[in-house]
């Protein structure tokens, strides 16, 4: 190694090494997980193939699955890269969804359409609960910029508070996971109990228009799908940037050997908080897109069971792979829908098998299987065809 130029002669990756050795570049080289090739394949799939192949109803379903993919991508950052397992992502999904739902509900509750209520101009569930005026903390949600900001800021703030308190005291692992569960439970009890303010167990339903644009029509669903898909791809690109930067390397190092990173002088706690906040914001964006596409938000996403299910999406896809997380979310949800239609008694067994299998047989999920089985096979074929 040349001491004046340490990176000369050291191949940055096996692929580049092969290129330098003069082997003819083979297509398989582009398909490293999270490489540009995989990303292009994913983009082609969700931007071109699905819209062409699926009718609007199924495309809307696919859009719903892609909102779960946001949560899974966030978990890849927090759990795969940061080592922070959060079993309460439903909290952030729900918070983002509720912020968006509050804005849409206020828009749908203008005095003209609610004139049969005792108090026109407020959402219907408030009217049933005999509220006579909009609570002060609902008022800012009349404005779309505020609602959009809230979708990002509120979950981030909560994640910051919880993460800061925990990570500064070096709580991690299982303890942290249990505490996120407790937070999920608190939020779901609060939302269900305060039905006058939040719609209770019914959630916030019957959302109709976004700034006058009807979100329930077929055309709207198509546009929202594309918005969702593009946002997802942008999110993945941003996360990739983080991963390839020094920050990403630090996160990885922290996950594996926290003490060494700490002794090297880094503030481990703040990095973990950062990873947790990224996951929270991504989940919240997913929640907001969910509300837009499905047309309601309910506390059934906030509790413990859905939060743990969201972890399985990331686990199936591969907790280290951003692209894999998307596939994982889509596949698990497809399986859920198909199984619960055809074999309602069997699908819990399927979920059980998924959880156990992912942990025991393929801990790096589908991406890991891809890396360990498909790529070497492609490589062997490439090498054989090159020689």
């Amino acid at each position, binding site marked *: 190694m040349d001491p004046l130029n340490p990176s000369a002669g050291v191949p940055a990756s096996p692929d580049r090494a092969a290129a330098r050795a003069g082997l003819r570049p083979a297509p398989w080289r582009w398909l490293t997980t999270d490489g540009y090739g995989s990303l292009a394949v994913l983009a082609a799939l969700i931007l071109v193939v699905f819209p062409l192949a699926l009718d609007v109803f199924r495309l809307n379903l696919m859009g719903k699955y892609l909102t779960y993919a946001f949560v899974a991508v966030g978990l890849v950052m927090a759990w795969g890269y940061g080592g922070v397992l959060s079993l309460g992502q439903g909290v952030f999904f729900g918070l983002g969804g509720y912020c968006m739902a509050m804005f849409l509900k206020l828009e749908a509750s203008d005095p003209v359409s609610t004139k049969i209520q005792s108090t026109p101009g407020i959402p219907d569930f408030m009217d049933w609960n005999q509220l006579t005026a909009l609570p002060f903390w609902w008022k800012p949600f009349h404005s779309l910029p505020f609602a959009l900001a809230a979708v990002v800021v509120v979950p981030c703030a909560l994640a910051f508070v*919880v993460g800061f308190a925990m990570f500064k005291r070096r709580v991690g*692992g299982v303890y942290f996971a249990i505490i996120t569960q407790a937070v999920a439970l608190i939020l779901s*009890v609060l939302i269900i109990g305060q039905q006058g303010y939040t719609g209770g167990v019914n959630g916030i339903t019957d959302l109709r228009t976004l700034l006058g644009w009807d979100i329930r029509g077929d055309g709207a669903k198509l546009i929202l799908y594309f918005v969702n898909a593009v946002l997802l791809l942008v999110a993945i690109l941003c996360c990739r940037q983080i991963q390839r930067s020094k920050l990403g390397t630090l996160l990885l190092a922290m996950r594996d050997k926290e003490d060494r990173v700490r002794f090297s002088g880094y503030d481990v706690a703040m990095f973990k908080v950062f990873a947790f906040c990224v996951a929270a914001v991504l989940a919240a964006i997913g929640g907001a897109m969910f509300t837009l596409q499905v047309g309601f938000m309910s506390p059934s996403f906030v509790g413990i069971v859905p939060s743990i299910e969201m972890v399985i999406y990331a686990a199936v896809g591969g907790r280290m792979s951003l692209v894999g997380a998307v596939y994982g979310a889509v596949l698990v949800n497809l399986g859920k829908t198909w199984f619960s239609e055809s074999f309602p008694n069997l699908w819990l*067994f399927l979920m*059980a098998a998924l*959880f156990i299998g992912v*942990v025991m047989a393929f*801990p790096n999920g589908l991406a890991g299987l891809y890396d360990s089985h498909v790529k070497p096979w492609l490589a062997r074929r490439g090498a054989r065809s090159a020689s």
Partner: protein
Amino acid sequence: MSASDILNITLMQGFAGLSLFSVLLLMGLGLAVIFGQMGVINMAHGEFMTIGAYTIYMFSQLADNYWHGFAPVYFPLAICAAFALAFAAGWVAEWALIRHLYRRPLDTLLATWGLSLGMQQVFRSVFGPKEVSPTLPDWLMGSWSPKPGLDIPINGLFVMSLAVLMTGGVLLALYRSRWGLRVRATVANRQMANAAGIDTRKTDRLTFAIGCGMAGVAGAAFTAIGSTGPTSGSLYIVDSFLVVTFGGAASLLGTVASAFGIAQMQSISEFFMTGSSARVVTLLTIVIVLMLRPQGLFASKVRRA
């Protein structure tokens, strides 16, 4: 209200707090033993409790349909059977699943969650989706009135005595038996224990099975105060975790103390505000205390990741 009425109410409310304390203790004891020994949080703990509950149901069906003389006395026998069945199930689960995930606590969390889903479906397929109600012996239902106006529920007394028995039994086993010796050695220093010739894997399996057996006994006891259905386990699981995490792992004293603290806080707040508010207040307090002191009330001297 007269002074004696107030006294009665205070006593009954105090009893309610103690009753909740023993319920939480029963729930958390099995989990604490497992967590202390192996660092495994068993998300299927609620389902092992449900195994115990369904055992009681099966015995009560036997007593009802085939052997009427059995009815008053089947309960203690059924509790022992509940322990045995849950113990066996735990043994199998540890052998098949948990031992492969040694040293991966987060993965064990997920795997045991999958196990709980599978067990729920098994209950649903075998016993049906509806709740079932075991016929409990008459001496267990009803109340004891030492003086008029003061009604102590007998099932509460029963749960309390069971909790005392089980805690005593566990303490005795931990500090007087060979198993206890092995467990304490493994908890203190696993590698040295291995080096000293203790088969830590076997100890792990035995401990897991005993913890699940205790869950079975808890579930059996809860048929006296709650419902039995495929999803009954999910009603108890979160509270069990909070009790164990709040108390600090590897510490039985911690579990006892945390169960007591949570129970009293919940009971007292329930008396003065609505049920939902009391629950939120209790949960918030637990979370805040855990944020300030994350290792729980009684931390083990060895720091855990």
